[in-house]
């Protein structure tokens, strides 16, 4: 009973219709997902779309199409596809194993074993000798695109053992790919970190502006930091303008530099499982917080992003918090840099006269101070103390991904393609033939397995051999030969 149920379940999971169904669903889901904006429900693109499509939005929202590739329906379907692929891979591997064994056996088969295990017989014209018959058969095979060799009275066209493994390898590699992608999503960390030139930041959640972490990611084993050594705002390498390019260092727990390099598109910094990219740069204001007496309490680098629509041409990447003695925030400070204008556009560069626009808000969002200061100048805070602008420079927005599965994902993809190539290109066939004498006269016995990428069919081989070896045309050809001799 249990075995019967298990067999039915396995049969269902291995069925072509399940594979076709799940592939179709994933394809249609992908198409639908590109038709609606992707993002959280409160993201502006999703909100705008929802307002514009009031009829569709409930359905789209219910299905989770705004976050299509993490929606439960999609994940359930991909899981089913994955399980189906495992079952198919297992079946294909079993089939390939059997075929590979048959090919190995066929490669060393002799006449006797062939006679015992043949599956086709072609009666020969009695006057045709064994070697003539084999020569004719060889020509017939060649005419049908089968390259056979004659060895010890046996014609042999046997594919190598690995030729039958292509499809199994392809499917197993797909399974491995899905697993590595899954593990990668569970353990990876992926975030954006703003680091100013000269600044060093530890690789810790608090350093990131945006961070996505898999549930299995562990910060306890991460002991490193990142430093931006320099930033060339307009680097040209190999005749191509690479834009603003930072020099980034990765430091170990002791602060020693592990690796330093320029980071720009197609030139990422890789250290072990870590990949660092720099998708954008902006300006940075170094701010010192002082007491009323001018004693410095601390320093902070404030990241500032370029924005052509903002009043100053820049927007603060974050707010600087000023805390009281109990550790509670007492005010927030937004720092921007007024940019120079050129041809009606803000010039995304350090302005000719560097200044910082400082706006201080209380916890209710009320403006307490709005002032512009130059490097070296201070802005007094409303309830004591002051902010000092120490300098304006650049910051690099680093995209930092920690994922050890990436090389394994690549390997799985490459192995899948190799398997697919073998499956596409390698001929999978087994053709053995020999001549034996029987009570009914001499005959050609054959063992044939034409599995994939073959040039002909079993029926075609049968018909061609019968026509060449036992037909009336053979008799007349032999008679002509005898007459001539």
């Amino acid at each position: 009973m249990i075995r019967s149920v298990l067999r039915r379940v396995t049969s269902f999971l291995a069925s072509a219709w399940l594979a076709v169904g799940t592939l179709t669903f994933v394809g249609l889901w992908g198409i639908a997902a590109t038709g609606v904006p992707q993002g959280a429900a409160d993201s502006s693109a999703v909100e705008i779309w929802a307002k514009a499509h009031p009829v569709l939005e409930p359905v789209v929202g219910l299905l989770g199409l705004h976050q299509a590739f993490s929606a439960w329906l999609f994940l359930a379907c991909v899981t089913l596809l994955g399980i189906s692929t495992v079952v198919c891979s297992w079946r294909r591997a079993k089939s390939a194993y059997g075929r590979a064994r048959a090919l190995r056996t066929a490669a060393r088969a002799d006449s006797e074993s062939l006679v015992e295990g043949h599956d086709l017989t072609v009666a020969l014209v009695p006057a045709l000798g064994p070697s003539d018959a084999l020569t004719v058969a060889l020509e017939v095979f060649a005419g049908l695109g089968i390259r056979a060799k004659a060895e010890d009275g046996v014609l042999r066209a046997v594919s190598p053992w690995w030729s039958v493994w292509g499809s199994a390898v392809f499917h197993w590699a797909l399974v491995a790919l899905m697993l590595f992608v899954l593990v990668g999503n569970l353990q990876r960390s992926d975030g954006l970190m703003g680091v100013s030139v000269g600044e060093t930041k530890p690789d810790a959640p608090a350093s990131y502006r945006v961070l996505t972490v898999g549930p299995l990611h562990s910060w306890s084993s991460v002991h490193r930091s990142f430093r931006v050594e320099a930033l060339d705002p307009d680097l040209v390498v190999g005749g191509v303008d690479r834009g603003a390019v930072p020099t980034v260092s990765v430091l170990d727990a002791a602060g020693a530099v592990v690796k330093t390099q320029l980071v720009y598109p197609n030139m990422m910094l890789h250290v072990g499982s870590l990949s660092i990219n720099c998708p954008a740069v902006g300006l940075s204001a170094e701010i010192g917080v002082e007491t009323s007496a001018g004693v410095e309490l601390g320093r902070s680098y404030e990241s500032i992003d370029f924005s052509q629509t903002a009043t100053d041409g820049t927007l603060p990447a974050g707010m600087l918090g000023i805390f009281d003695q109990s550790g509670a925030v007492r005010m927030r400070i937004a720092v921007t840099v007024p940019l120079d204008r050129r041809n009606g556009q803000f010039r995304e560069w350090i302005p000719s006269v560097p200044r910082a626009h400082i706006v201080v808000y209380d916890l209710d969002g009320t403006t307490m101070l709005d002032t512009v200061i130059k490097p070296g100048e201070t802005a007094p805070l409303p309830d004591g103390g002051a902010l000092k602008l120490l300098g304006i420079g650049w910051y690099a927005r680093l995209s930092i991904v920690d994922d050890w599965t990436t090389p394994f994902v690549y390997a799985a993809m490459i192995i899948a393609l190799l398997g697919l190539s073998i499956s596409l290109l390698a001929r999978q066939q087994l053709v053995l033939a020999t001549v034996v004498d029987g009570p009914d006269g001499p005959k050609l016995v054959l063992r044939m397995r034409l599995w994939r990428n073959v040039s002909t069919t079993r029926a075609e081989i049968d018909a061609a051999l019968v026509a060449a070896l036992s037909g009336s045309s053979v008799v007349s050809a032999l008679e002509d030969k005898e007459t001539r001799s």
Partner: protein
Amino acid sequence: MTLEIIFMWITLTFYVAATVMFVFGVIFTKDRLTRRAVYVSAAGLVPQLIAISVRWARLGHGPYVGYYELANALTICTVVFFVVAARRNPRLNATGLGIMPVAVLLLGAAMFASKADFPITASLASYWLFIHVAFANLAFAAFAASFGFAIVYIVRQRSGAGKWAKRFEKMPPQDVVDDYTARFVLAGFLLWGIMIVTGAIWANESWGRYWSWDPIETWSLVVWLIYAIYLHLKHMRKWSGERLAWFAIAAMPIALFCLVGIPTVFNTIHGGYIGGADG
């Protein structure tokens, strides 16, 4: 009008002429005309390669950026695939009836599209560009070839023993045409797969992630899945003949839309290759 554009118009003229010759050659069962149409198709490659070489020398990069260049590369691969197949097996000449109109449409649209000189941007400046684009072009050419074979198959099948069956009687038997369709689908499936894998590796090097469900990535996967369904139906469900031919006919325009339509319809980080902006 520059030398490059003049040569490109000459190319288009050759391809249009070849298409017309295929149409008349097949309709009036003039084998010689069909055979010559293959030569005319091949001849069209000469001015096209000259034009592309001139552009390459001037810009310092191959046909990778912008619809004009992309369509040229796709057309070259498609016509080369067809001419090589037809030269190896002259019985396939008549499939030009299905393949050359694709080349004419692609190149014709390119002639009316922007021919602006797009530079190679920082995101595109990588040896992966050549590899990734080359496999995209080759995959499309294979799908276009399967499309041509499938059209011939359908026309003959629908005709039964009628006029159209006679017009294509020099072609290999229907089961062989069916087999050719499947072989080109399988070749395209492999090449498209390589395109996706090289694209993923390149994306990781350029943008820091190998897959981000960008519209182009999603649609590339969709096309691959569509052809995977074709192969499952053929090899596991033993589908063949007309149903599968219709499938191949329907799938190719989706592959074309993925390559040239998606970047123009959707906001994508891949937009740079069609619009010239930094992708």
